[in-house]
Every structure is written in structure tokens, then in C-alpha cells.
């Protein structure tokens, strides 16, 4: 059934089309493999990290001492040699210096030998933990020494024991799980547990059992066994896999986002494949017509071309895998700093298999339409020199529908989330519809224009030349550019809002519970210009007369209306606030109590201007009317308040004062000491570490995002190339005619450049319009940040698109330019 020599001939001719086709397949493969490997690596390292984060395979947690049944169960497993176990007690305690001169609240961690089973506690002396943490010794965080003016070798009274500070802890594997703590860390050996006499009835202690399972395959089974004997609701048995850390969830979300980009790239590559195959088969039309004329059946012809395309697809797949392996060495470089050191970025058989499957699938889907068209080809084509239009009957539309459905199914499979998958599909649909509509409108409007300059007019004419994929190219370019532009714009906006604004003025230290009477002295002592926020606590009784259902609200997982809210008062907007609705924060001449609501709260609870919110401020009812809705414009870490009242309303209410300031990290301990000495009731929270880590991760993430959007840019270029190839015949024809009619090379170049320029400019402009609108929407409603349109960047993006499109267009037209008229004419006449 296969015609070997025919297939060979098809493969060796039409080289450019086959190259583009293969490149599109390669691109989709590489994207899928790189992404899959990346996510697998992240997942693996996260699991490994999760082990480190929890310092064991199985973690049993309880606020109370473990029940004897559970204790026995663990004991018997240890005896059987199936597991190793270490107990950890985590509690706050007040430690005192010798002679009880100073005291400090610390976060005690009493550990049994063996802790941590995974990861390591890094000490300043670089010695291993078990060597240092012996009976009578403790290891403290630097903050303890700073706050109590001690040094290593000094003693500290912990509970009822006096212990020696043996070392300073630099890093603790399971620390990042808890973002902040009220006091610095102190490690104590479990051998001192009795002597401390801190873990007893009436103590508040987090009890932990860390288990290391000898045979990794047993983890889930053993955990299930232990869960069976654990006291329900009190003793929680987790494995490192099930104990979801915030970081894991964060990465899950990030990977999901990359998945979306990958799917988009796949879509673009698919369009590239389709357009390359169309161009490829166009060249074969005469051949196919002749084959039909001599009696070849549709079945036979289609089969031959399927074999041809399969071979090409296979070549692309193999190349893609090879390139993927090359990327393997490149990926760690890109992801450096984001992933833990121990991560292995490699390509898994699964990733290759999955990529292969998806790649083949994409090829099959996107080649089916052009292949289908072959069926309609009549042998009569041999005798005709001019093109005929394609008839589009029911079978054609059914095929289109099939392609769409299969692709949608593929997206759903890749995303594993039906709702978001459907959002994505409808999003892409809306995007394409908008791009089509806009480009159609623009094309229609320019088609009617009278243009004086001949090259420009000719360029415009070129856009409407028969069989030109102008509309398709503009739509695909617009769609891909919209996404790329949007990602860039969002990135810039997030950058401007967070990363850039961070180093200068984002606060890193919070002071809570300053009393009004202390305010003046506190502000003097702190000596830093700072905004002080009075905090009045109050609850919402009803909204527009509808009472808050307390029982139901507490069932809500997120924020709930039944909790106590922090209210504040001031008569002005903060630097980082803007009014969304209402002319001013408060109005004059309005009866009753006015309140200004933050937009996020208003949106979440459907609050509008003029709504009535009844508060209960510590026993005093306060009926208010919403007179303005505020939004936050800048720093995300600045404190914010849902409700702002006029000063006269709340000034007399019981309140504490809160402030957030930026302090040089090195001075924090000293300032903390000074402030706490003068104002012992004030609590200090130091967020420096957290904020820095977040800022760094944010920066890194945008790098990775850009790396993956690069793939979609490449896909866009390939689409462009393949569309040039698809219109190759008509372009060559025109060029030859122009030459015969006496046009110089410069004229032809001008027309080509202008034509591609118009194409690029149109797509870029429409894409910019769409992406500005989209980014604004996303910034405003999802990220909740102020939006900057970045006009310079927008211009730059348009110019780079223009340059890229013109360059790609010219490069892929070189052979057309070089075409000798006589040869083209001879071929036309002789055929």
C-alpha cells in the first residue's frame, strides 16, 4: 500500500516547508518536555524538601501528650526495626540570664537524638548537631545573644535548669514552615527535658513524633496503621507527602501557570504545523491531481501523505527530545536560586513519553484539516493555471469541530482541572474572536482607502492577495502577541508594584499594641518618621439591615464577617490609597456616621456606595453609611484597613496603635531591645527575612515565566515563516511580474517590507490594545494593584514586533527575490 519512492520524493522536495513543519513539532515537543521535566523536578525536590521541611517521613502532631495506644504503636514499630523515631517538643518559654537579671520569651525546641532525620541543623561552628546538643548544652539563635547581651559559653536558666549556650544556630530545616515566631529559637536536648520541668499538665506544648521509615515503600501503610490508633481530631498523622506546606502549594500554582503557557505554545505550534502542512500540500496539489487523474484513490493518496507527515513528525519528535536533553543542562541555570540546591533537573521517561504522545496528537490534529482538503482536489487542477476557491461543506465544518473538540480535551487532560480548563478554552476562544473581529474591522477599513504611494498601495494590495493567509496570520500573531505582551505588562506591573517598591520603603518591622498614652514617647524613642495607625476593634452586626449569621460565617473557610474587624480613623487618604468611588474620603453635611470601605472588602461582600453597615464597637452600636470606596495603589506589605471612620467618631473608643517601619536589618535587634525596654507591652515582629525571600522568588519567577514565553515567541516566528511559505507561489508570481514590468529590486523590497510591516504593525497594535485591556483587568481585579500602561515598553514591544516580522518576512523571501523571471515563466508555461 505504501509507495516508497513516492514518499521519498515528497520528503526530499519542498524542503523549506518540511523544515518549518519539523521545527514546529520540535518546538511543541521541547516546550512540553522542558516544562514537564521542570515540574517533575520541582515536584520531586518539593517532596524531598517536604521531607526536609518536616524532618521525617511520618509526622505525628498533637497539642497534648500522645495517647498510650499511639505511643505503644510507635514503640512497637521501632522495636520491629521498621522505623526510627524522635520526639520533638515545641513550646514558648521565658528564659532568664544568670541571677535572673534579664528574661526573654523564646521558642524552645526540645529534641531527641536522631532529629532531624532529613536536612541538617546548621551551626555557626559547623559542627554536627548531635555533637553539640548534649545534656546540659543549648543552641540558640543569634537574636537570643543580642537581646540578652550574652555570648557562647554563658549560661541561661531554662525552666528549672541552668544550661550552657554551646553554639549558635544558623539554619534549621523545618523552620520555614512557620513564617514568624514570637521569640528566637533555643534548642534543648531531650535529656534535659525532666530537668526543665516545662512539659507538664497545664503547659502548652506542640508534641511531635518524627518517624523515619526504613523502607520508603512502607510510608503510607505505616502512616495508615498509626492513623488507626491515633485519637481522632487530636493526634494528626501526616506523611511528608500529605503534609502540604505553603511552599508546595505555591509551586503547584506556579507550575499550573506555566502549564497554561505551555498549552498556549502548543496551540501556536499547532497553528504553525497546520500552516506548514497547508503550504507543503499546496505544492503537491499538481502531483496529487495527476495521481488522481491516473486513477489513484483518495485513500491511497491520503495514506501516502500520512506516512510522509508521520515520518516528518517523527523526525521532529526525535529532534525535540535531543534538544530537550540539551536543555536539561540549561534548565538548572535558569532555575538557579529558585529551587533548592539538591534538585535534580533531568528528563524523565515519563516526560518524554507524555511529550511524545501530545506531540503526535498535536501533529495528527493539526494536519487533519489540510489533509482533508486533499480529498476535494479535482484532477482538473492540472489544466488550470489559476487558483480555485475551496468549497466548504458540512464535512469540512465537522472536521473543524472535531479538531476543536480534541484540542479542548487535550487541554483538559494537561491541566487536570475542568473549571480552569474551560476558562482557558473560552479565554482563548474570546481572544481569537476579538483578534478576528478587530483585524477584520481594520482590514475592511483600509481596503476602502485610496493610497497615493505605489509601494504602500501595493503592500496593502498584497495583504488581500488571493489565498493569502493575511487574516489567519494576523489573528494568530495577534493572539500570541497579546499573550506575550500581557505577560510582559503584568510582569512590569508586578515588578513596579512589588520588587521595585520594596527596597526603598517597604516596612520590615511591625510594632503592635502601642497604647495611645505611649504614642508620643514611643514615636520620640523610635525617632523615625512613621505612620501610626490607631486600631479600634469592632464587629459587624448587619449589612443593610441583614444581620450577620455568626454560626454560618464561622464555617466559611476564608475571611468571615463574624470576626472582629480592625477599624481605624483618619480624615485623609494614605499615600498608597486612591478613591474608587466618592469624591472625597468623607462628605460634609451628611447626617450620621460615615465610613469608607476598601474595595476588596466591598467586592467580596457586595458593598456599594450608600449601603448601611451596622457596627458594634465594644458594646456601642454604630450605624454607618458607606460614603467612599478606597483602593490600594502600591506597597502590598503596608498595613491596610477595610474600614476608615472619621476621627471624631472613634477617637474616644478603646484603641491600640500599630506601626510598620523600615529599619536597617542590622539595627533591628538593638532597636528592638531599646523599644522593648521602654515599652514592655509593645510586641515587635521582624519580617525582614520573609520579605526578602519573597522578593527574591518573585524576581526569579518572572525570569522563568519569560523563559517559557520565549517558546511562544518562537512559535509566532514559525507561524510567520510558514505563512510566507504558504503564499510563496503568489509572492513569487508577483515579484516576477513586477520585474517584467520594469520594477527595480528596491521597489520590490519596499513593497515586501511594507507588506510585512503593515502585518506586524496591525497585529502588534491590536495585540497591544487587547493586552493593555487584559492586563489592566487582571491587575485591577485579580492582583489588586495599581496599573501602569508602560507606554515606552509598549512602543518597544511594537517596534520589536515590527522589526521581527519584517526581518522574518524578508529572510524567508530571499529566494523569492532571487527568482529569475524567465525560469518562473518557463515553469508556468511548460507545466
Amino acid at each position, binding site marked *: 500500500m505504501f509507495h516508497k519512492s513516492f514518499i521519498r520524493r515528497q520528503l526530499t522536495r519542498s524542503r523549506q516547508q518540511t523544515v518549518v513543519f519539523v521545527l514546529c513539532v520540535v518546538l511543541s515537543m521541547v516546550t512540553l518536555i522542558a516544562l514537564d521535566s521542570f515540574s517533575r523536578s520541582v515536584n520531586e525536590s518539593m517532596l524531598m524538601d517536604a521531607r526536609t521541611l518536616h524532618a521525617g517521613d511520618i509526622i505525628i502532631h498533637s497539642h497534648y501528650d500522645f495517647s498510650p495506644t499511639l505511643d505503644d504503636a510507635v514503640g512497637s514499630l521501632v522495636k520491629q526495626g521498621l522505623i526510627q523515631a524522635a520526639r520533638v517538643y515545641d513550646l514558648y518559654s521565658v528564659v532568664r540570664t544568670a541571677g535572673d537579671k534579664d528574661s526573654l520569651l523564646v521558642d524552645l525546641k526540645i529534641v531527641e537524638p536522631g532529629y532531624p532525620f532529613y536536612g541538617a541543623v546548621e551551626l555557626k561552628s559547623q559542627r554536627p548537631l548531635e555533637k553539640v546538643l548534649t545534656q546540659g548544652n543549648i543552641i540558640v539563635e543569634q537574636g537570643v545573644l543580642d537581646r540578652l547581651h550574652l555570648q557562647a559559653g554563658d549560661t541561661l536558666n531554662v525552666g528549672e535548669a541552668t544550661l550552657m549556650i554551646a553554639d549558635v544556630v544558623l539554619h534549621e530545616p523545618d523552620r520555614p514552615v512557620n513564617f514568624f515566631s514570637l521569640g528566637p529559637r533555643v534548642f534543648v536536648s531531650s535529656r534535659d527535658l525532666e530537668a526543665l520541668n516545662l512539659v507538664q499538665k497545664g503547659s502548652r506544648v506542640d508534641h511531635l513524633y518524627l518517624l523515619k521509615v526504613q523502607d520508603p515503600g512502607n510510608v503510607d501503610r505505616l502512616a495508615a496503621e498509626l492513623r488507626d490508633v491515633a485519637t481522632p481530631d487530636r493526634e494528626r498523622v501526616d506523611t511528608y507527602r500529605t503534609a502540604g506546606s505553603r511552599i508546595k502549594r505555591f509551586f503547584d500554582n506556579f507550575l499550573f501557570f506555566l502549564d497554561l503557557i505551555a498549552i498556549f505554545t502548543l496551540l501556536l505550534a499547532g497553528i504553525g504545523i497546520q500552516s506548514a502542512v497547508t503550504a507543503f500540500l499546496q505544492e503537491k496539489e499538481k502531483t496529487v491531481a495527476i495521481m488522481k487523474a491516473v486513477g489513484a484513490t483518495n485513500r491511497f493518496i491520503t495514506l501516502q501523505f500520512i506516512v510522509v507527515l508521520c515520518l516528518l513528525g517523527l523526525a521532529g519528535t526525535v529532534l525535540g527530545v535531543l534538544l530537550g536533553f540539551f536543555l536539561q543542562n540549561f534548565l538548572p541555570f535558569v532555575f538557579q536560586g529558585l529551587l533548592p540546591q539538591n534538585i535534580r533537573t533531568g528528563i524523565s521517561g515519563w516526560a518524554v513519553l507524555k511529550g511524545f504522545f501530545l506531540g503526535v496528537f498535536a501533529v495528527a490534529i493539526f494536519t487533519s484539516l489540510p489533509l482533508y482538503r486533499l480529498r476535494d482536489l479535482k484532477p482538473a487542477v492540472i489544466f488550470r493555471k489559476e487558483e480555485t476557491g475551496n468549497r466548504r461543506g458540512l464535512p469540512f465544518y465537522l472536521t473543524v469541530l472535531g479538531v476543536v473538540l480534541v484540542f479542548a480535551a487535550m487541554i483538559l487532560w494537561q491541566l487536570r482541572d475542568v473549571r480552569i480548563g474551560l476558562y482557558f478554552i473560552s479565554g482563548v476562544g474570546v481572544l481569537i474572536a476579538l483578534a478576528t473581529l478587530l483585524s477584520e474591522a481594520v482590514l475592511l477599513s483600509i481596503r476602502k482607502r485610496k493610497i497615493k504611494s505605489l509601494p504602500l498601495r501595493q503592500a496593502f494590495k498584497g495583504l488581500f*492577495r*488571493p489565498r493569502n493567509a493575511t487574516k489567519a496570520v494576523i489573528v494568530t500573531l495577534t493572539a500570541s502577541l497579546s499573550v506575550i505582551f500581557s505577560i510582559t505588562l503584568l510582569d512590569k506591573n508586578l515588578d513596579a508594584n512589588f520588587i521595585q517598591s520594596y527596597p526603598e520603603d517597604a516596612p520590615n518591622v511591625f510594632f503592635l499594641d502601642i497604647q495611645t498614652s505611649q504614642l508620643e514617647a514611643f514615636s520620640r524613642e523610635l525617632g523615625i518618621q512613621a505612620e501610626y495607625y490607631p486600631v479600634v476593634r469592632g464587629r459587624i452586626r448587619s449589612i443593610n439591615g441583614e444581620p450577620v449569621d455568626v454560626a454560618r460565617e464561622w464555617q466559611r473557610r476564608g475571611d468571615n464577617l463574624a470576626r472582629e474587624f480592625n477599624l481605624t480613623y483618619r480624615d485623609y487618604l494614605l499615600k498608597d490609597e486612591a478613591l474608587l468611588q466618592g469624591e472625597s474620603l468623607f462628605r460634609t453635611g451628611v447626617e450620621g456616621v460615615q465610613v469608607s470601605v476598601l474595595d476588596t472588602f466591598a467586592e467580596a461582600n457586595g458593598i456599594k456606595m450608600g449601603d448601611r453597615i451596622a457596627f458594634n464597637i465594644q458594646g456601642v452600636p454604630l450605624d454607618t453609611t458607606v460614603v467612599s470606596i478606597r483602593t490600594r495603589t502600591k506597597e502590598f506589605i503596608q498595613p491596610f484597613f477595610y474600614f476608615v471612620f472619621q476621627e471624631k467618631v472613634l477617637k474616644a473608643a478603646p484603641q491600640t496603635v500599630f506601626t510598620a517601619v523600615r529599619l536597617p536589618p542590622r539595627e533591628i535587634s538593638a532597636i528592638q531591645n531599646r523599644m522593648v525596654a521602654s515599652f514592655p507591652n509593645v510586641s515587635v515582629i521582624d519580617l525582614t527575612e520573609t520579605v526578602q525571600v519573597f522578593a527574591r522568588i518573585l524576581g526569579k519567577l518572572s525570569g522563568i515565566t519569560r523563559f517559557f514565553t520565549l517558546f511562544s515567541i518562537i512559535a509566532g516566528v514559525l507561524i510567520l515563516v510558514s505563512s510566507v511559505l504558504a503564499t510563496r507561489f503568489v509572492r513569487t*508570481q508577483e515579484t516576477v*511580474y513586477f520585474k517584467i*514590468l*520594469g*520594477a527595480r529590486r528596491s521597489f520590490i523590497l519596499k513593497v515586501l517590507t511594507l507588506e510585512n510591516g503593515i502585518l506586524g504593525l496591525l497585529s502588534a497594535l491590536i495585540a497591544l490594545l487587547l493586552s493593555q485591556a487584559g492586563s489592566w483587568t487582571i491587575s485591577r481585579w485579580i492582583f489588586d494593584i495599581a496599573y501602569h500602561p508602560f507606554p515606552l515598553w509598549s512602543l518597544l514591544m511594537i517596534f520589536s514586533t515590527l522589526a521581527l516580522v519584517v526581518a522574518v518576512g524578508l529572510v524567508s523571501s530571499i529566494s523569492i527575490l532571487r527568482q529569475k523571471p*524567465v525560469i518562473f515563466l518557463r515553469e508556468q508555461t511548460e507545466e
Partner: protein
Amino acid sequence: MTILEAQQLTKTYRLGDREICVLDGVSVAVAEGEFLVIQGSSGSGKTTLLTLLSGLDKPTSGRILLEGIDITDFKEEELAPLRNTSIGFVFQSFHLVPSLTAIENVMFPAELRHDHDAEEKANILLRRVGLLDRAGNFPHQLSGGERQRVAICRALINNPKIVFADEPTGNLDSSNGKAILDLLLELQKERRATLILVTHSQEIARTSDRIIFLKDGRIAAHGLGSHQGGRDGFSEQHHVS
């Protein structure tokens, strides 16, 4: 006076490992305003001769002089203005630019030389060939005869000294073909252009000033068309070499 002169034109092609000689030492001189017909069987080299004479292709050896100027070694860029103003082409398969309307196709050569009267001239020509009402149509909306008439208008808009026509009636039925040819000849007379025509048709050949008969890349015979009085096109035939 001689407007176009070919001296010892030879053209060889490589086809695989074979070398094929399509034209072998053809010399011909065309006088201003002459109507020259080139005839010959398929593969005799008549189209090749036309492309060489019109500067679309370069001869392997030999020279071509246009108005006494040797254009043999002209580069494409030097040939462009010649093609634009001095030469007009009419092809068997029309070769109209598909994205341009009839009038735009006609105007194009004039516009290339920044002729401000391009539209007016194109209108005059289209009216002359009876296609004014079809001016806004695209080539694919026109019949074969109409397309060829547009092509003729395009060939003539810059008042070229020479018009090359390669089987202009080959793709048309006989009545249409006759009409087109009559039109071409009329216009040629009106504008005093030189017409070099490749055709199979004996009937057309008879109306010419002179006939060159090609065989295997050589001029097998010269003949006189009806204008020279001879009823038989090959009455004065002789071998060149």
C-alpha cells in the same frame, strides 16, 4: 532603421549531465515599426529567442543591441527601466497581477515611472479595447479574452518601442484569438511600435512584415508576410548556414 539587433545568439542549458543547445547562432535585425513573426515547432527555441531578445534571459554567447546599445551584459537593475519604458510584454497565460484590478494592472508600469497621467492613459486604453466598464474587476473575474486585452493595454501604456508577444492567443478560442490579434496589430500601427510575435498560426504569420522560421535552434527560413506582397510566407526561404 534597426531598433533591435541580435548577433550570433547561442543558448545552451544543462539538463542533468546532458548539454542541450536550444539556440545555435541566431542573428536577426528588427526594423523600427516592423511586425516580425517567429515561428517554429514545439521546442524549436522560439520562446527562448523571444526571452533573449527581450532581455529576460542572458544568451550563452552572442550580443543583443537595443537601439544600438549593447544590453547583453546589463544587470537586472539596468534592465528594469528599459523593460518599464522601452519594452512591453504580452504572454500566452496573461500574467496579470492577481491582487490588482484591471485598471490597476494597466496603470502599474506607468505608475512605476511616476507618470501622473497613468490613470487617464489607462482609461483611454481600456476604452479603446472596450473594457472600461470592467476596469474595477480583478483578473479572476474576467474572461480569458478580457484578460488578454488588459494585458495588451498594460504592455502599451508606456508607449514602448517594442512589444513582445508570446503566443498571445494560445489560451483563447479562435474567434477570441482573432479579435485579440487584430486589436494588437491595430494598436501597434496606431502607436508605431515594433511587434515581435511568437505564434503557431499561419494565418497570423501571413499578416506580418516578416517571418522567421526556427528549427532546432537555428533559423531555418525567412519569409515575408502579406505586407511584402508574397502570398506564400516562405517564398524566399533560404538556409542561414
